């Protein structure tokens, strides 16, 4: 009988508090960065190979919209992963473990990420 028993895990029906949204996004941004490593290592490889490859990598980042977008995406993910990671570290030291302070911290993470993403956009374009 127990095999047949359903489990209520219909995530769409649950309320997800801000702090928990931050947490899952931290994870998602981490995975995004991991996937982006292919791109970063290739760029890094080119940039150190020779002057001409350096120039073409530079050109790619300056002219190709797709490359620019990927760069911006990775920078934004990094910004978020970084901010949320800071929140984690702060929590590890025993701060922000109450609902109110955690919510404030979560809002701060969002604000900081938004700012960093905009700055990253300005920088890339």
């Amino acid at each position: 009988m127990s095999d047949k028993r359903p489990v209520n895990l219909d995530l769409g029906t649950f309320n997800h508090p801000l702090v928990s949204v931050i947490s899952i996004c931290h994870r998602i941004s981490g995975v995004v960065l991991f996937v982006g490593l292919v791109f970063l290592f290739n760029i890094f490889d080119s940039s150190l190979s020779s002057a001409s490859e350096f120039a073409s990598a530079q050109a790619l980042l300056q002219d190709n919209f797709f490359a620019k977008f990927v760069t911006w995406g990775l920078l934004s993910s990094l910004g978020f992963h970084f901010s949320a990671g800071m929140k984690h570290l702060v929590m590890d030291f025993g701060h922000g473990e109450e609902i109110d302070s955690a919510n404030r911290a979560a809002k701060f993470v969002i604000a900081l990420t938004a700012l960093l993403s905009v700055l990253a956009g300005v920088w890339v374009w």
Partner: protein
Amino acid sequence: MVTTVTSYGRSGLSDWLVQRVSAVILAVYSIFMVLYLLLNPQIDFVQWSALFSGTGMRIFSLMALLSLGAHCWIGLWSVSTDYLKHFAVRFVFQMVVGLLMFIYTIWGVQLLWGL
């Protein structure tokens, strides 16, 4: 209470600690790189490769590389044990992650010392 062969240090505490320490190193490295590039918008190949040929920067970069490997492994191992419920799928995923991180590390070392 729960031991797992594929966990990094096989102790929750060491995994946790490695995750934190590597995070700090990566954070500092990221900030340094971003600031460096921002302050040197007109950077050229000579300056760029000179940066990475200094011993200090090589050590710093190697630390970041190793941190990256550990950080990704622990993070993705944890992701895989959450969502991938089929043993074979999880195992293959973990092997791919492990292999990739190994490749990235060797690749990075080669880049830095190949200059």
